[in-house]
């Protein structure tokens, strides 16, 4: 528009459309702080090993093993991706909850319920072609996970019951429910008295991607699902009206309600979405990795997902990166125990330290003042 006769107001409006350049603090928060956090966490992890009588030599070998075990070979990358996929999926669910202001601790239970549903569909309906059966099984996981989380959302919307409590309780309920379901004759594997399900049929199994290279490579088509979901969540959050509602409700629920957003509906929707993603993570595990369900097949994915979401700052891309990092730590940690005999519980320590430092930029700044020349003090927090 180059009309010459711009009124002063129009001119002003034009100026207001200018974006300010990203400040140095943004760059520091997004790059320097995480790098420092990982570095410091690894150093502290080394100190813990030293304190427990592990020799310097072994510490060196364990960190090399951590690296080779996570990205050092095709097999290692395969393991990293296998471990990261469910973390990212469930992490996205938790992150969507955070974005809308809900602290969803219930991902673990949602993973379990979604996984159970996927398994049941996965071993039933024999004879269907894979392009029908597999989507059906995945969809079952998504739906049941969503419905299960929707309970917490509905309770919050209808009665004001705090989601932290209701999701903790739903987790505990789901553990028992899975124990029970796995002993129902039609689900339980024939001839077994312990809780274990029938095996998922081939037609509902997420195909492995690299088994032609080496049959032990477990990475499977779930990776594509995960990448699609990262894009989908990004699109939903930032490009759609629903995402706008989620974000507004998360930042200021009162203002969102006053602006005519239907808070009750948003609660239920976002919890259902979070549950659907966690349920997909569960389905991904049983259809892609485990092939059947047994008690505790969620293996803490739902709890780690909280860390992943926090670490990824509840941004879909951040969640992807954080999930890959956690997946790498998990795969590498295993190698660490095999090669250097250092318990893979060390990884838990490193993970918690990374989150601590990333969540507390002030702390990192205190530790590494020279890393931040942009005047942090001048920012009014």
């Amino acid at each position, binding site marked *: 528009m180059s009309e010459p006769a711009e009124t002063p107001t129009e001119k002003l409006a034009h100026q207001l459309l200018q974006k300010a350049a990203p400040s140095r603090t943004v760059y520091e928060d997004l790059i320097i702080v995480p790098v420092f956090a990982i570095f410091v966490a690894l150093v502290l992890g080394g100190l813990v090993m030293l304190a427990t009588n592990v020799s310097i030599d072994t510490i060196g070998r364990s960190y090399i093993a951590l690296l080779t075990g996570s990205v050092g070979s095709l097999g290692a990358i395969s393991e990293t991706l296998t471990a990261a996929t469910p973390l990212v999926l469930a992490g996205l669910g938790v992150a969507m909850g955070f974005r809308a202001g809900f602290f969803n601790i219930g991902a673990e239970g949602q993973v379990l319920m979604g996984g159970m549903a996927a398994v049941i569909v996965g071993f039933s309906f024999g004879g269907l072609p894979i392009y029908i059966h597999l989507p059906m099984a995945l969809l079952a996981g998504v739906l049941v996970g969503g419905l299960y989380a929707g309970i917490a959302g509905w309770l919050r919307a209808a009665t004001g019951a705090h989601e932290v409590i209701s999701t903790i309780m739903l987790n505990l309920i789901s553990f028992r429910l899975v124990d029970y379901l796995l002993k129902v004759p039609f689900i339980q594997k024939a001839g077994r008295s312990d809780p274990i399900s029938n095996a998922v049929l081939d037609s509902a199994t997420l195909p492995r991607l690299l088994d032609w290279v080496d049959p032990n490579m477990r990475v499977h088509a779930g990776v594509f699902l995960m990448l699609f979901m990262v894009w989908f969540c990004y699109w939903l959050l930032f490009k759609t009206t629903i995402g706008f509602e989620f974000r507004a409700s998360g930042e*200021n629920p009162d203002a969102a309600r*006053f602006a005519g957003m239907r808070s009750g509906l948003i609660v239920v929707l976002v919890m259902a979405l979070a549950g659907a993603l966690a349920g997909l993570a569960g389905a991904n595990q049983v259809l892609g990795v485990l092939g059947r369900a047994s008690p505790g097949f969620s293996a803490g994915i739902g709890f780690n997902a909280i860390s992943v979401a926090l670490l990824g700052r509840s941004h879909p891309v951040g969640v992807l990166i954080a999930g890959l990092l956690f997946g790498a730590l998990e795969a590498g940690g295993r190698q660490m125990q095999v090669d250097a005999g250092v318990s893979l519980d060390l990884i838990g320590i490193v993970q918690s330290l990374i989150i601590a430092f990333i969540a507390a930029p002030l702390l990192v700044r205190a530790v590494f003042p020279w890393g931040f020349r942009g005047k942090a003090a001048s920012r009014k927090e």
Partner: protein
Amino acid sequence: MDIELRGITKRFGEVVANSGVNLSIRAGEVLGLLGENGAGKSTMMNVLSGLYRPDEGEILIDGKPVQFNGPGDGIRAGIGMVHQHFMLVPVFTVAENVVLGVEPTGPLDSLDLKTARAQVREINETYGLEVDPDALIENLPVGIQQRVEIIKVLFRSADVLIFDEPTAVLTPQEVTDFFKIVRALREAGKALVFITHKLHEILEIADRINVLRAGQIVGECLPGEKTDLELAEMMVGRPVSLEVEKKPYEPGEVLLDVKDLTILREDDSLAVDDVSFSVRRHEVVGIAGVQGNGQSALVEALAGVHRIAGGTIAFEGKDITRASARARHQMGIAHIPEDRLKNGVVANFSIAENMVLNSYYDDRYSRGVMMDWNAVNERAAEYSAAFDVRTPSIFETVNHLSGGNQQKMVVAREMSRDTKLLIAAHPTRGLDVGSIEYIHSRLMDARDEGNAVLIVSSELDEVIALSDRILVMFKGKIVAQFGAGGRPADKNDIGLAMAGAAL
């Protein structure tokens, strides 16, 4: 006790709140401190009470320099402050609030509330305050809460009492009572500081007046020396008109019709009790009342964000009692909420996002579920420019704007839509004179364009200046109506009605 402030400067980051302020406070005298919102009055008094530490300058008490490292020091030095927002714990009793921090104790650190009650009663009698020491703060009207604040200060045997905007939430009658208390305190030899932006009050009560503008003292005078217009000019720094220009009153047809409306609070107590009224086109209806008499619940119920327990609301003849907030927006009801930060804006969102907070679903801003961010940004820039929102860019987050600009942003959002009825709750609370004038004129424009306007404000002057008709709420009921051919809008009468007196 006399206090001297010398060259006090206080900065917050890059913002200078006070610079080189000199002030003297004397026993047995009421010092009036006049200044606009944001002029630095409260900051200065927070420095004096020890809550903030000054960056430069010194405080002298009876000629001796002192240093305060926390509010405790100020209290110990005999300086007590009654804050604009009361510093009372709502779930504690009066006695508990009064003794908090200086509790009389028995064995095992146990609270000696018996002594506390006795002491509260004693102060009650000395100054004629009449407060029940066992009442819960949350059940008390604001006027009484203020007395609790005063008792709190006196209980700490303060010799200097600082009142920050003490009359903002009081009815005229309560103001009269409050002035009586102030005079009694002056008689008792206390030094008093009275901070306000209300000219007539300062002229009535102050023995000496200091005017503060942009963090600096710009003048000192005695009450008799200056007229209110001159004082206003000193305060704002330019000539101001104290009148709102208003075209003649020609009401149109009824737009909003409220019948037998009853609203309950969360604990099932009555907030609004069987209220009926209507608002017409071309008309400004003001609702006056002391805070907490149901105005907030009424506004929220009209905006569709508060459950209605009984009665009906009709808009343009259609029953909207059960209509959602969004449906009401779409019908043309706009709402400027009383607490903009809590209910009006999303502080971490950009101006652009806030500008479409309640219209993002409109065809103008979205296609199906997809947002059209280009359209949003262009409109946001347009409205920000038109409504004088001062910001470098519409991508700035709202928490970087000043209060006045935030409010202008909310007004821009609400008035740029297809509005028929504008509900404005405390539209100018906490704003500077420039912003107030601007928003007042916009409200008048809205009326003159044929909209209905409903204004709720605790500033009686504002309500009287803007409204064609005034309804007074007391304990959830509409107890009186003024203006528009009925009883004339006399400030004193309205005040009486606000206090529940039968007229």
